[in-house]
């Protein structure tokens, strides 16, 4: 309301001023006519006498005593008017900024989703992640007894809690088929540490979280409450069957609290004391009393005024005391407290590398875009020199002029920013629509949230300062007199053209770095797309089981899986079937410790920790994993027979260097039994197609039985045709058996592995292309402008007899020198940039020498083309006209 009133007053004042001046002119004209002048002439004369109407208006407006806000509004209006007056300039500048800011916004949104977004908890910065840095085997989580000891003694934290992820089978009624859901087992104080309050009911009390196995209570997530409990207001007190045990709902977590992860959404929280009733452990010790089992994610909320470093120092001291008190379990376990972001960087360096890469590439695009706009503004400043001189002659202060020009830059940047955000939102929506093929509720949650918007606004404003400040300063700085006298300042022109040449060179160099980096990335991803994953991806169906969810014992589970597999093998259209613990490209959390016999360990190291799969005899044939030497597991490898393993080639190379691996032995576990290597499999890709060759182990299902297994079914034709038959087979054995993660391998591989790579590929490719387009436009503009500045000189040259060819050569030579210098600088710069990149991103491989040939040639070609058109124009100059032009 207030704003509207103000706008109305402002409008009226403007109109009055207009009318006042109009009436002045009219009266002056009438007077002249009365004195006998020709009416038309009189009008012109009155106007001439009056002077520049716009300027008079402007200096008069300045007397209105506007506050800062009004002055800004005036400046914005003025800037808008002056930008509208030169649509070519405005269009090019805004388009450059749209690409630059759009690329950055999209990249930032991806970075947020992958890495940077803070946890959805209260004051996430105050929450530390406490983990163990094991001196020999690296980072691990914390055991529950260690957590209790730390919490009892630490003084840096106002609260501390531990939690761990479990997949639990949840059903509402006894007879219903349970659903497999990701849940958290938590210590008391979990919700306090996260700083969230259940919206209904309560969190867990201390008593509920101290005595093992006593309190089957649960707090459900908001999502679960809404979708599974129908947002029932009487949800508190309801009973849910979790792994067959009746649990009472005591609370509902608030919406938006997804439980200490941005990617996963946990369905419910149960006390850690229930962990062993939910899933009994083989060797009896409850997990919350087992100091040797580092399975808990521990977080502590810092007391006000305590820094992360202080907390970490305290935790380290307490950890050292634990090491002394429990040497058996805690030897080499050093404790450390990290911020959540630092923790993520440590956990997923390859994600951090990818994020750094995306941000760097898009930043380069923005720098090129800003350089474009800066050079456009510089050129514009020249043509506006006289305007500036007049304005400052009638008393506009330099500060005011500077302010006005900067407002103009800001307006440009904000326009570019707004459109850039629009562009980015298209990309973001596209990315968010990608679903990974897994039952796990996770996705790349890119969104245009407040943080992303803030980032774009800040980026826009900073770029405005970056590209606008120097041209604005240069524009208001020059001495007035020569500018008013018109004509060029030949002397200063030399200095000026130096600046322009520097800009051209820098742009070529930056663009080269950008292109080399993008080309290297593209190359890496292209290799990834065509890489052989080392597993069959066609005509292979997979489905996952865990019979314990239907309350089978471990033995019953194994028997069920065996029977199911035999039944499915008999189905028509099935070539073979196999059981496998792991599915490639999905973490299976099946790490084993082994001691290869005869291997010389580094001092202090006694075992090798690596990922292993548990498979049955038909796995290698069904999954198409080639065995290079030896044999697959056989029916005679039973629980009672001698232990056997199959290693991959990388394992053989690394741990039995120079010797034949077949027939050698390794210990399973530090003091475990020896197993004989009976086969060597080809090294495949296990977690990511970008990974370097990784040692890997296969254990026979009969000797290392598991309850959660995936059944792989190789078919003669389209695998999805037999899905119905597969389900019939399952239900003929047990109607209530839950089945999950049913995918055909091709879909799984394309959507789960290739699609995310394709996204990055497209993004990097687009960013590279955007950079190239921007640099081309910028180069063309700059060179064309430089040539146009030399019109007079060229005119003189031609007047004294230089031929057209010579002028053309002159200008092309200059372009070539600039391109050459820029290219050399760019090559020199891109080498260190590349080594930083490949350090961050293991899959990058080596720099393709072709890149270093093709990219510079391309850029030189573009620069020359950019020179050629203006050069051709210049060589057609009519000398007399050129000399008169200025």
């Amino acid at each position, binding site marked *: 309301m207030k704003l509207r009133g103000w706008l109305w007053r402002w409008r009226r004042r403007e109109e*009055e*001023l207009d*009318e*006042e*001046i109009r*009436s*002045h002119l*009219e*009266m*002056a004209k*009438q*007077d002249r006519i009365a004195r006998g002048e020709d009416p038309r002439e009189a009008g012109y*004369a009155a106007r001439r006498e*009056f*002077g*520049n109407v716009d*300027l*008079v208006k402007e*200096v*008069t407006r*300045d*007397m*209105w*005593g506007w506050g800062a806000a009004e002055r800004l509004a005036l400046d914005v209006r003025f800037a808008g008017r002056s930008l509208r007056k030169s649509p070519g300039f405005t269009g090019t500048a805004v388009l450059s900024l749209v690409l630059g800011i759009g690329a950055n916004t999209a990249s930032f949104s991806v970075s947020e989703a992958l890495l940077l977004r803070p946890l959805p908890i209260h004051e996430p910065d105050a929450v530390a992640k406490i983990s163990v840095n094991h001196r020999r085997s690296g980072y691990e989580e914390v055991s529950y007894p260690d957590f209790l000891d730390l919490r009892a003694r630490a003084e840096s934290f106002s609260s501390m809690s531990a939690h761990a992820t479990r997949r639990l089978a949840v059903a509402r009624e006894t007879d219903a088929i349970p659903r497999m859901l990701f849940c958290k087992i938590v210590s008391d104080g979990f919700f306090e540490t996260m700083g969230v309050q259940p919206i209904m009911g309560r969190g867990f009390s201390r008593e509920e979280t101290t005595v093992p196995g006593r309190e089957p209570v649960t707090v459900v997530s908001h999502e679960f409450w809404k979708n599974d409990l129908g947002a029932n207001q009487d949800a508190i007190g309801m009973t849910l069957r979790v792994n067959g045990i009746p649990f009472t709902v005591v609370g509902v977590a608030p919406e938006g609290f997804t439980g200490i992860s941005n990617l996963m959404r946990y369905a419910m929280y149960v006390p850690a004391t229930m962990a062993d009733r939910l899933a009994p452990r083989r060797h009896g010790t409850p997990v919350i009393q087992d100091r040797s089992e580092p399975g808990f994610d521990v977080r502590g909320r810092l007391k006000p005024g305590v820094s992360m470093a202080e907390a970490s120092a305290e935790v380290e001291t307490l950890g050292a005391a634990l090491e002394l008190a429990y040497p058996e379990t805690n030897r080499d376990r050093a404790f450390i407290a990290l911020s959540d972001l630092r923790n993520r960087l440590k956990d997923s360096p390859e994600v951090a590398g990818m994020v750094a890469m995306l941000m760097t590439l898009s930043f380069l695009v923005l720098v090129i875009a800003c350089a474009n706009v800066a050079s456009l503004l510089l050129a514009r400043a020249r043509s506006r020199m006289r305007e500036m001189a007049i304005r400052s002659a*009638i008393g506009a202060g330099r500060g005011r002029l500077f302010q006005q020009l900067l407002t103009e830059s800001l307006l440009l940047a904000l326009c570019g920013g707004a459109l850039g955000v629009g562009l980015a939102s298209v990309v973001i929506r596209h990315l968010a629509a990608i679903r990974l093929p897994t039952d796990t509720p996770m996705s790349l949650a890119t969104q245009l949230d407040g943080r992303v918007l803030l980032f774009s606004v800040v980026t826009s404003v900073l770029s405005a300062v970056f590209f606008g400040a120097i041209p604005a300063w240069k524009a208001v700085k020059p001495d007035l007199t020569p500018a008013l006298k018109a004509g060029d300042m030949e002397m200063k022109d030399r200095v000026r053209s130096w600046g322009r040449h520097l800009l051209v060179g820098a742009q070529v160099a930056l663009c080269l770095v950008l292109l080399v980096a993008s080309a290297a990335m593209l190359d890496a991803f292209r290799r990834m797309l065509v890489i052989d994953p080392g597993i069959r991806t066609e005509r292979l169906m997979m489905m996952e089981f865990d019979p314990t969810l239907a309350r089978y014992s471990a033995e019953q589970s194994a028997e069920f899986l065996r029977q199911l597999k035999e039944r499915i093998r008999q189905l028509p259209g099935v070539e073979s079937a196999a059981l496998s613990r792991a599915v490639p490209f999905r973490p299976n959390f099946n790490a084993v410790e082994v001691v290869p016999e005869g291997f010389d360990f580094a001092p202090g190291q006694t075992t090798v920790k690596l990922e292993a799969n548990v498979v049955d005899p038909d796995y290698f044939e069904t999954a198409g994993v080639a065995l290079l030497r030896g044999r697959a597991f056989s029916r005679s490898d039973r629980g009672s027979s001698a232990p056997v393993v199959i290693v991959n080639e990388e394992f053989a190379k690394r741990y039995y260097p120079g010797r034949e691996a077949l027939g050698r032995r390794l210990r399973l576990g530090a003091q475990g039994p020896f197993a004989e290597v009976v086969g060597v499999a080809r090294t495949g890709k296990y977690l990511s197609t970008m990974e370097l060759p990784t040692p890997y182990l296969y254990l026979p299902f009969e000797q290392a039985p598991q309850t959660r297994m995936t059944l792989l079914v190789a078919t003669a034709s389209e695998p999805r045709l037999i899905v119905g038959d597969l389900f019939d087979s399952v239900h003929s054995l047990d109607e209530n058996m839950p089945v999950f993660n049913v995918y055909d391998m091709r879909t799984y591989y394309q959507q789960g592995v290739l699609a995310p790579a394709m996204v990055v590929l497209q993004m990097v490719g687009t960013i590279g292309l955007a950079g190239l387009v921007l640099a081309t436009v910028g180069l063309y503009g700059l060179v064309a402008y430089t040539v146009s500045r030399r019109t007079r000189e060229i005119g003189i040259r031609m007047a004294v007899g230089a031929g057209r060819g010579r002028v053309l050569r002159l200008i092309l030579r200059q372009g070539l020198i600039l391109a050459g210098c820029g290219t050399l600088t760019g090559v020199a710069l891109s080498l260190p940039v590349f080594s930083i990149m490949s350090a961050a991103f293991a899959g990058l491989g080596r720099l393709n020498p072709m890149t270093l040939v093709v990219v510079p040639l391309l850029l030189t070609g573009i620069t020359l083309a950019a020179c050629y058109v203006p050069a051709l124009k210049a060589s057609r100059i009519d000398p007399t006209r050129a000399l008169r032009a200025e």
Partner: protein
Amino acid sequence: MPSTDTRYRNRIELLQGTLDMLILRALGEEPRHGYGICQTIWSGSGEVLRVETGSLYPALHRLERNGWVSSEWKLTENNQRAKYYRLTPAGRRQLASERNRWNVLSAAISGFMSSESEAMA
């Protein structure tokens, strides 16, 4: 129409405060519009003082802001709408004090100038 050169040669630069005083003086007898003020000062100064529009209008708006003049839209004798400025009581007091200041100043300057010419002679 005089050429630009003579126009500039004949122009007498006005000190900032002096312009305000001239405007207030021009409004002393009756309300006038901007063009009328120009004409009054031009003819009243024996066609010596020409007020530039680029100085006049900012000055008028400044005086109005200071509360020394007020304005209203009226019709001229030729039936044209124009913005008329009139002196406020505060403006009258301001004119009086400016006039005093000017009298003291000009007497001092002319006294000094004539004494110098006598000394020279």
